């Protein structure tokens, strides 16, 4: 990193924050200032609310925000995936319409890729989009859609050509989620929670100008979204974790921000349980006296080794990235590691709980939290890309092993599918 550039950016943002930061401002009001100044998304291009800064200089800006506890732009949900996709593939009109309200947090977004018939095989989507010369009509079903019930807009992958090969018959749209043809139903999981939705489209409409990228090139647009998703899936949040909680947080804007988070996170209550809650194992073993059980000790140590090694591996990957070394698909390695961690943590929680592992809800240990862990962990190796898909990616992209033979070439119409295309 060029030291003079760092000093100059740091001085500049510090001065700007000094002039503008107000912990008692309204949340949208403040974020509007961020958008206008370009300090809210400093790595975005100057023409679209950013300053075109490098990742390293962006980090400097983030440090300065964190230093004084200044609130940033909205990042919850899949907003930033939507933004990254639109920045790369969207038309100027689309960027104009959507980017600002993404950053201010005024719009909530959801991602409509997965379908019941095509779980790991995203490109096998059967939802159809038909054009009548003016407008697209959408019919079909999507699933595993977080936030769909309060989303304003959706990123939609739909089939526009059944005679083209699988990956070439898809197009990518932005769909208005607030319309009659869109029905959102929660999907209850084995742990009793509904963190995901199913979305049903019955003659829903998409305006012609909300096609993203070219007709039939939806797969490559979706790859942009997925690449950004994987990049965030390494088990750790962005580098900001290092500097968080460093600043005083007093002011009314924080209440508004907290409320925003609560709304966004509400259906995800069980997410941390899905990852196995390694943090609870040692304290529970110590508090319950089960630490004296030699079998618990061995498994707990195994877990600590695995979880620590996984965290350090993610940090090695990030450090390499920050040093400008080539970025590999660390997301897949991290996600696979997270599955192992969660499963082993579930095992350790079971051993610590003993017969109490029989109980759930208010009767269960930690007021049901442990049962929730045991019943949520099975999802970690499936949701967001199964372990099997991660292993394929690692084998093919990192290790350079040959790809699987393909059975889905030729017109999509002729490819073996779980349901007929309607």
């Amino acid at each position, binding site marked *: 990193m060029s030291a003079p550039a760092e000093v100059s950016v740091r001085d500049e943002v510090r001065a700007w924050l000094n002039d503008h930061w107000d912990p008692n401002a309204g949340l949208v009001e403040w974020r509007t200032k961020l958008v206008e100044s370009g300090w809210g998304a400093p790595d975005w291009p100057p023409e679209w609310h950013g300053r075109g800064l490098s990742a390293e200089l962006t980090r400097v800006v983030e440090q300065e925000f964190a230093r004084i506890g200044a609130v940033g732009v909205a990042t919850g949900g899949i907003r930033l995936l939507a933004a990254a996709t639109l920045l790369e593939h969207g038309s100027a009109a689309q960027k104009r319409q959507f980017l600002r309200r993404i950053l201010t947090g005024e719009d909530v977004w959801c991602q409509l890729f997965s379908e*019941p018939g095509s779980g790991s095989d995203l490109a096998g989507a059967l939802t159809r989009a038909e054009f009548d010369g003016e407008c697209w009509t959408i019919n079909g079903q999507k699933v595993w859609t977080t936030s769909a019930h309060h989303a304003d807009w959706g990123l939609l992958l739909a089939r526009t050509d059944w005679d083209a090969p699988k990956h070439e018959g898809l197009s990518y749209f932005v769909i208005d989620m607030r319309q009659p043809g869109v029905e959102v139903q929660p999907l209850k999981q*084995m742990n*009793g929670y509904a963190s995901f939705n199913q979305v049903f489209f019955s003659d829903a409409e998409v305006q012609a100008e909300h096609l993203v990228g070219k007709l039939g090139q939806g797969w490559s647009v979706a790859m942009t979204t997925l690449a950004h998703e994987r990049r965030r899936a390494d088990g750790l949040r962005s580098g900001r974790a290092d500097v968080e909680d460093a600043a005083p947080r007093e002011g009314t804007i924080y209440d508004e921000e907290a409320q925003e988070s609560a709304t966004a996170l509400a259906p995800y209550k069980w997410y941390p349980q899905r990852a196995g809650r390694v943090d609870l194992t040692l304290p529970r073993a110590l508090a319950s006296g089960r630490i004296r059980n030699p079998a*618990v000790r061995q498994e707990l140590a195994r877990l600590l080794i695995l979880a620590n090694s996984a965290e350090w591996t993610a940090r090695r990957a990030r450090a390499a990235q920050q040093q400008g070394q080539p970025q590999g698909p660390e997301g897949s390695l991290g996600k696979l590691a997270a599955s192992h961690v969660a499963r082993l943590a579930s095992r350790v929680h079971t051993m610590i709980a*003993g017969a109490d592992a029989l*109980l759930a809800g208010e009767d269960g240990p930690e007021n049901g939290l442990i049962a929730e862990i045991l019943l949520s962990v*099975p999802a970690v190796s*499936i949701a967001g890309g199964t372990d099997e898909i991660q292993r394929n990616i690692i084998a093919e992209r990192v290790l350079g092993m040959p790809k699987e033979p393909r059975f889905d070439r030729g017109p999509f119409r002729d490819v073996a599918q779980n349901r007929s295309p309607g």
Partner: protein
Amino acid sequence: MPDVQFHFTEEQRQFRDVLRRFMAAVSPTTEVRRLMDDERGFDPAVWRRMADELGLAGLMVPERYGGSGFGLVEVGLAMEEMGRVLLCAPYLASGVLAANALCRIGSEAQKQRWLPGIASGETLAALAFAEPGGEPGVESIAMQAVALDGGYSLTGCKDYVVDGCNADLLLVAARTGAEGGLAGLSLFAVAGEAPGVSRRRLQALDPTRQLARLDFDGAPGELLGELGGAGPGLAQTLDVGAIALANEMAGGAQRLLEDTLEYIKLRMQFGRAVASFQAIKHRCAELLLQVELMKSAAYHAAQVADAHPEELAYEASLSKAAASEAYLHAATEAIQLHGGIGFTWDQDTQLWYKRAKSSEVLLGDPAWHRERMIQVLEQREFGSASAGAAA
């Protein structure tokens, strides 16, 4: 062990066929789901048919007390078929644990008094031994009973009691003195509705198995058999229960394997059946092996329990530990191979997963049983277990 059989007899195979048809008819998963929300958690009409048509309630109760007088092999078969369909019924509680405890510990008069009702299915009995946070096994039982008016008065708490809320008759393990370990343990008969007994249905991780917490506050109990003499019989009863449970688990694991194979042979991804991917095939091969191994252990334990009771403890721990790991593995793989649908509420795999997870710790978790296997081997070798063997 020359008289241990590695196959089922023709009669046993026929018994299995009858059971399988019956269970498939009475316990589809729609029914399981209905009973999960039922207050009692089982269907009395089905229980009655099980008792009347199949003689299941008294399967291992001697004929002179109105039972069928079968051994653990037949009980294992029944449990296996129940495990296949996740049958919701108080069979393990009443027909296996309580009936066995009474047979082993009760006096002749007490057996004559209670066993016929249990065998006919009219009396539901439950065995209350574990206490909150206690280690598996009977050694950790601490509850005290005191002699009162020619009977006994019980005070304390029993936890994780299978079908404890459904039972007419509670068999409660307690101590009357300061002795620890197997010595000094007694078993008491307490009416389910007796004064001083409060029962609460617990929220269970596996809602297909009914668990209760029982609080005793000076509840009146009748001593079963000899004072302080119940320890060995109780331990044997829990071992029989563990073997029965291991067979139930084998049935569940086998079912998971079958259902999963059926699903992935039909499910298409990337233009081909999920079952055609080699990584999936290899894992299914390993899963089949694990399931066959657990079945072998469960079957063997049932055979040995009948023919060589001196091997009961070792075989119980071996089969329960084997079953615990394999069933959970089967359930985990089943969910994974189903993909996203596998962890949804509406898909049935999760029902078996919960049964697998709870069965893993019911009657002792695998690490405890493995430790116990070595203690048995040491006792054989040295006459006592190793000092180095921690809890």
